[in-house]
């Protein structure tokens, strides 16, 4: 099992610091949700965890080794990232897009093999895109497009998958479809770390929650410890009612009003 950890991690762009001395452990084999207000540094942190940003301080460790010292292609077979709002090149088809997920697995000698084809098929089937495989991505709806990108990350077949707001653009059913798909993958052993905006989804689907505010961890732990009226007031500036979900027993958050 691979464990992804951040130690005293500071991240930023040029001179602007965004994430400050952050310590973080994402339990392996579990689903971790990152929540927090717009601009608090969730995407920045996710990019840092995926070695897209070089730490200003501290390190991100994969099984105890700093990811910046690992060969990038080797890392890409273990750790995948689906960024927020990716844009597909004009004219690419769903199948071609998903096939790009195989990039870290291919070499000059072995370009496209049976394993790649299987991974592609699985990714198509898991995201219910098989019928749309030969459609051009530009011609899909926002939700179908998002699923195509998720399928690309699935084709990468990594132990750990980082997703930045994978449910944006999706209708209720497709949101649940994506989240259930992630749960299903998680049961097969994939560690999932994702940014979510819907607190109730986070409470329902994640094993571990991390609340970020202004580049710092405000709280982390199980939903019951993290989704509280107090923490929601502090991080989002929203007065809410938190009560146990009548079916699951997990916390259910009903926002009431913004605190001026």
């Amino acid at each position, binding site marked *: 099992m691979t464990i992804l950890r951040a130690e005293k991690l500071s991240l930023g762009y040029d001179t602007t610091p965004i994430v400050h001395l952050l310590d973080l452990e994402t339990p392996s084999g579990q689903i971790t949700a990152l929540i927090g207000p717009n601009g608090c540094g969730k995407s920045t942190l996710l990019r840092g965890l995926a*070695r897209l940003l070089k730490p200003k301080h501290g390190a991100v460790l994969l099984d105890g080794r700093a990811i910046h010292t690992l060969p*990038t292609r080797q890392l*890409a077979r273990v750790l995948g*990232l*689906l960024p927020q709002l*990716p*844009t597909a090149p004009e004219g690419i088809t769903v199948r071609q897009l998903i096939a*790009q*997920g195989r*990039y870290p697995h291919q070499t000059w000698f072995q370009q496209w093999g049976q394993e790649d084809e299987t991974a592609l098929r699985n990714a198509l089937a898991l995201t219910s895109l098989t019928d749309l495989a030969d459609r051009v991505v530009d011609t899909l709806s926002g939700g179908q497009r998002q699923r195509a990108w998720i399928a690309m990350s699935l084709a990468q077949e990594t132990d750990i998958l980082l997703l930045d707001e994978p449910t944006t653009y999706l209708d209720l059913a497709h949101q649940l479809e994506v989240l259930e798909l992630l749960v299903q993958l998680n049961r097969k052993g994939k560690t999932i770390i994702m940014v979510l905006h819907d607190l109730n989804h986070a409470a329902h689907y994640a094993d571990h929650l991390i609340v970020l505010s202004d580049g710092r961890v405000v709280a982390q732990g199980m939903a019951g410890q993290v989704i509280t009226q107090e923490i929601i007031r502090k991080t989002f500036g929203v007065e809410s009612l938190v009560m146990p979900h009548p079916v699951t027993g997990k916390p259910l958050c009903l926002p009431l009003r913004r605190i001026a």
Partner: protein
Amino acid sequence: MKATLHIHSITRRSWRVSLKNISRLYLVLGSLLFATFITFVLQLWLGEYPIAPFDVLNTLLSRQVTDKNYHFVVMELRLPRAIVAWMVGMALGASGAIIQGLTRNPLASPDLTGVSAGASAGAVTMFVFFPGAPDVLLPLAAFGGGIFTAWLLYLFAWRNRSTAGSDSPLRLILIGIGLSAVLSAFTSFALTFSEIWNAQRAMIWLTGTVYATGWDDVNALFPWLVVGLPLTLLGARDLNVLNLGDNVAQGLGLPLHTVRAFLLLLAVALAGVTVTVAGIMGFVGLIAPHLARRLVGVMHEKLIPTSALMGGFLLILADLIGRTIRPPTEIPAGIVISIVGVPFFLYLLWKREKA
């Protein structure tokens, strides 16, 4: 039962689709080669001094022909010139496809980004100020000038792309056209320092033409193309990934900076060497990738070879037209292509505005 059938038919269909895709690529490449071959024959046949195809063939095979001039006209004038046009077109087609992929900008091409003008300025600098330098250094000087321009372009347009909010294809092109203007002015200026005969020969640097090219030029192009064109295929898969955006590409393990540098050097080298032989041949590098994309789609392992062959075909055709439309006057191939290229560029702009 129904479900199995359904899955079965899907697998069959996707298999057929991929087979169709592959054979489509070969069909396209084959057709382009065939069209190029026909144009080649016409190139040797037609002109101010027409030579019947049969005599052309005999001359090529060094058989006895009725007219002794045939050998000179075919072997020393028309054949090398046709080969040069083809090679220059291929290099520009491949270079354009790479530059468009690299910048994720469908309006980009070696000439519109200023890279060609930079290469020309580099070559002219060497030519005028170091007249004693051996000819093999000329492509290197062109390469240097092209890289210098690419660097300027990066500073002014490319680097700020993400902070500007979104990719701005027009910004890159406007800056490229600006750089072109400045560099061409420099080239003209430098040419005034050269000897008269030098200046005459050097006019080539300012207009794209394959007029009066010979076997020397074929030899000058050959090593660059033999190394460069296969290398473009090596970069094709990386370009596909690069086109998904920097974040996704890095997430997939693409060494972004290395790959970018490699592809840029390659594109500039291919465009640069054409400048030393044929000057700034505009629009081939813009049109060829677009036509190729129509034919084989957006994946670079198909797009680049198609674009190269398309560029080769276009240029040899343009030269044929320029040479035969009003003999003995010759219209430079670069101008023939611009007549089509400028409206095409405007059409691309218009289409983007509409979208």
